């Protein structure tokens, strides 16, 4: 079943941001890992995942309607 999420990619991951990020189609039940792979983001570049403002991980499952944030490691000062 097709559902949608709001997708936010941070810092260097913005290069992978799809056009329809505000209403990005997913398959209901899709894992974050599958989503990341579908976006072409190397898994090694992903350090932090948030779903609706709460820390999640790549095995977390999306059903639609979530806000998903993905971060690379950020260390500049």
């Amino acid at each position, binding site marked *: 079943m097709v559902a949608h999420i709001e997708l936010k990619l941070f*810092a*260097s991951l913005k290069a992978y941001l799809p056009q329809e990020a505000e209403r990005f189609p997913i398959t209901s039940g899709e894992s974050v890992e599958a989503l990341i792979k579908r976006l072409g983001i190397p898994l090694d570049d992903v350090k932090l995942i948030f779903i609706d*403002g*709460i*820390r*999640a991980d790549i095995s977390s499952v999306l059903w639609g309607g979530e806000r998903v*944030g993905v971060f690379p*490691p950020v260390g500049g*000062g």
Partner: protein
Amino acid sequence: MRAALGQAIWQVSTPATHPDGTPYRSIGMKDLKKLCQGRGLSGRDGQIAALEAGVVPERYARNVRVYSLEEQVALLRSSVCVVGMGGLGGTVVEVLARLGVGTLLLVDGDIFDESNLNRQFLSQEQALGKPKVQEAATRVGAVNSSVVVHVHQCYLNEDNTLSILGDADVAIDCLGGLKDRFVLEGATKQAGCPLVSAAVAGLSGHVTTIFPSDPGLQVIYGDPLSLPTQGAESSLGCLPQITTLLAALECSEATRILLKKRPLLRHQLMVIDLDDMGAEVLDLQRG
């Protein structure tokens, strides 16, 4: 002697009013310095004595409507270790000196180079090639000569960090790169010292607070052993507006800790992205 000093400060102080008309007693820098020199007291001790006598050192007149005189004293009695004198550290040092944090432990082994000029407030054309930490000490002396500064011109390692931290009340992580942050965090945990940590890349960044019993950086960066030396900043650089903003947030949180107020970013990650003016506080405790 304390009472006599308080009395002398009161006598020299003058009536003043805040911009909204609220009256207070004020003493200027020169008068206070004169009173301290005559008694062999440090500038910081003089400022504390004035505040305890109910007199506001004029340089803190715009602080003391939000912070009470007792809280200004608490800041003057506080010690903060700032690690990294780059973009974050330069602003943090500036803010803490102006707030009147009494003791600053400044740590950095680096010298200024030209690529620092875009964001590092302590860097300037004539300071290229000079040690960052010395420039920082000079700046603090110029802004608030009453602040006691301890300079550590070195990089952190497993052996030196604990002794550098000493009995700091708060440490502020202003480091660049990823791995040294874990060295600092390890020492703060051992020392029982709260840590405020920020990092930036491009136009975005994040800040958090880690108490010794908290899981800390590993939640944000994963296993330190599998980390690259640098993060997204190696491809995006660091812009001055986000660096300065995050440094200010670090100071705000550190000040709350110094004043025994509830820290607001423990187990939380405040994320700012100036690309879309997004600001969000995310929950680091797994859902």
